[in-house]
């Protein structure tokens, strides 16, 4: 992180980004550096965009089982501008507040984007987490039913945002695991 260069970014822009995101100065400069390495040469960083494939291949996201969902949630029209990348890094930064993380975690885990995390979403989450070929149907169904029995308060077989928020507020590992430190190479 110490090798990032201060390259073409104006001081006012840096100050503005610091005020609008949870990132520190060094982190913003690091992301700027990474962005410049990936975007086509010659373009001003504020106008360049990256594809989701490029962002998915960053070391920070390369092995993440949810990287396609992360890219979908944070990009606009499947393209990432510099500010989109900053917004993504801000949510995953260490200083971000819990409510912001829970908000975006809900969007990431909602695979079918119907505003609720239902059984289908849960099964896909578990499948991605286990990442193995011989996962039996029983195991998936068992785990899904356990999660729902713990956090589905109104018994409608899906998690609304407030139920998810309630479950994550009680979860001791959420803040520690929903963090990405380093966005460089």
């Amino acid at each position, binding site marked *: 992180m110490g090798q990032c260069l201060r390259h073409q970014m104006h001081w006012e822009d840096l100050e503005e980004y610091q005020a609008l995101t949870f990132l520190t100065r060094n982190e913003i400069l690091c992301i700027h550096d990474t962005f410049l390495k990936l975007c086509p040469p010659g373009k001003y960083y504020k106008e360049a965009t990256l594809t989701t494939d490029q962002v998915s291949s960053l070391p920070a996201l390369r092995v*993440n089982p949810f990287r396609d969902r992360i890219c979908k949630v944070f990009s606009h029209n499947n393209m990432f501008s510099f500010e*989109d990348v900053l917004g993504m890094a801000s949510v995953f930064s260490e200083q971000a507040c819990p409510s912001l993380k829970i908000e975006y975690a809900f969007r990431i885990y909602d695979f079918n984007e119907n505003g609720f995390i239902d059984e289908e979403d849960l099964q896909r*989450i578990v499948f991605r987490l286990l990442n193995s070929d011989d996962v039996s149907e029983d195991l998936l169904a068992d785990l899904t039913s356990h999660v729902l029995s713990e956090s589905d308060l109104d018994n409608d077989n899906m998690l609304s945002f407030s139920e998810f928020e309630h479950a994550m507020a009680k979860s001791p590992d959420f803040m*520690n695991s929903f963090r990405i430190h380093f966005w460089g190479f």
Partner: protein
Amino acid sequence: FLQELPSYRSIARRRTTILSRDKQSGTLLKPTDSYSSQLEGGITENFNSQSIRKYALNISEKRRLRNIQETQMKYLSEWDQWKRYSSKSWKRFIGKAREMTTHLELWREDIRSIEGKFGTGIQSYFSFLRFLVLLNLVIFLIIFMLVLLPVLLTKYNITNSTFVLIPEHNQCDLMPLTLFQGFLEETCLFYGHYTIDGVKFHNFTYDLPLAYLLSTIAYLALSLLWIVKRSVEGFKINLIRSEEHFQSYCNKIFAGWDFCITNRSMADLKHSSLRYELRADLEEERIRQKIAERTSEETIRIYSLRLFLNCIVLAVLAACFYAIYRATIFSQEHMKKEIDKMVFGENLLILYLPSIVITLANFITPMIFAKIIHYEDYSPGFEIRLTILRCVFMRLATICVLVFTLGSKITSCDNYSCELCGYNQKLYPCWETQVGQEMYKLMIFDLIIILAVTLFVDFPRKLLVTYCSSWKLIQCWGQQEFAIPDNVLGIVYGQTICWIGAFFSPLLPAIATLKFIIIFYVKEMSLLYTCRPSPRQFRASNSNFFFLLVLLIGLCLAIIPLTISMARIPSSKACGPFTNFNTTWEVVPKTVSTFPSSLQSLVYGVTSEAFAVPFFMIICLIMFYFIALAGAHKRVVVQLREQLSLESRDKRYLIQKLTEAQKDVKNRVDGR
């Protein structure tokens, strides 16, 4: 249909804003995409610009918000403008200061890289080690400022001081100090060196014995408060949950993946550990159900088997304690012989015999416990916890046994009479120094063992596995796994020795700090070069609470010998700052008696029974009140959950009725 419900829409609106925990701001902001016209009108004045960051919008929208906010500011009065400007700059200053202090954090990069490569469980071990380094450093600073600084000032003749006078009418038969062997005993490493009674400054005399005692109490209180503060986080979470803490499926599935993993092999390992953990949890649930369905016959059989096995465990513990007791007595007796007559190696063996026996016991007993618990037929999670608990007890109790053996030797008076001095002054003219020596030996031996195990067991094992992997035996044995519970017990053991020994040997915390720094680097190298990550991983939240709990047990076990030696055993009359007092604790009553009489009567009043008993009763009443309150809250939570599920059923029933009615109307319209 469900998306048109008012409850869903209000949540959706709330989702694109922030639920600002700020008590100042009143209304919530409407999202910019659909309600932009209400945007300008809906902002209140007491808007904190720091809370813009918390909004779940992208940066361009936040920028618009900020511009609107700033134009709004023009309509405020001068006073409000200045208030907001100053609060903004204050918050920015705090943010920058926090950023600076994170740079000062010790070993930040090392711990981050360990987290990325090995996961948060092992990272929490290294954070715990860092915490202990800081704790020992602070303890040493306290002792330095209160005790060592005046001694140094006196040594370099910066101030005058009076030395401890041995009163003439004391009839203890004092042995001359020249009989002490070894050069270390005379140095400021041990208690015996501190013979200053009072250090004279301009206006007052600095009472060194009182300072010595107060520094001990201060570092124990500071350790207790710091550990409790750190463990409050984990404990708060435990209190909220009614079910099994840390085992919740929600936690494991939604917060199961460590997003900071960047390594392909680490990711594979995380997947396999998640598979293992989730399967183990389901298995445990099945076993628990099986246990609940046991017949009474089986239950009796299991319980009698467990009783028998627990007796075996107690017997093993008793055997170890007895071995340590005999080793200590043997070592103490033979230490007194003329040392130059013995061979050097034999001398060292006798000196370090208690440490060797303790290390052997701590090595053998975990294996015995692991074998025994197989037969006790507990669920897997409980098995692990019980084994760890037994090992913790074993490790920490060995130190207590050692200290109590020493204590019993000091106050045992077979042939020599102890009436004059209260302790065995022939064998132990300066018993505090000798206890301090034992603690120092334990600590050094512990460090040597850790270094030796790493150098002579871990690295060769790694070399064998890398170069001779064709041998079946080596393949079975495999590479080292970083066993977190054993390592944590090791450092808690070291810290307990430090706490007990710091009273008898004031420089011990400094040695402990250096020792833990060395251990950090050694363990880090051992982890990076010789260990493979284990498939069964500790969770970070679980680990933190477990480590601090074990440390707290160590602290409680350390306080017991200290209080006994301070309050019961008479202090040495031949050395140390407390020769003028019967026991170490006597300094405090003597100091209180020099206070002005009003203060004295206040102190006596506070410590008398007339105050203590009502105080205790009031505390009990307050505790019962909080317990009752917690019980009432739990009942309310259960009722609310039931009510929520009822509401949802009502909702579905009404929707069903509505769709039927709509279909009816449609049919009627079509039919006409």
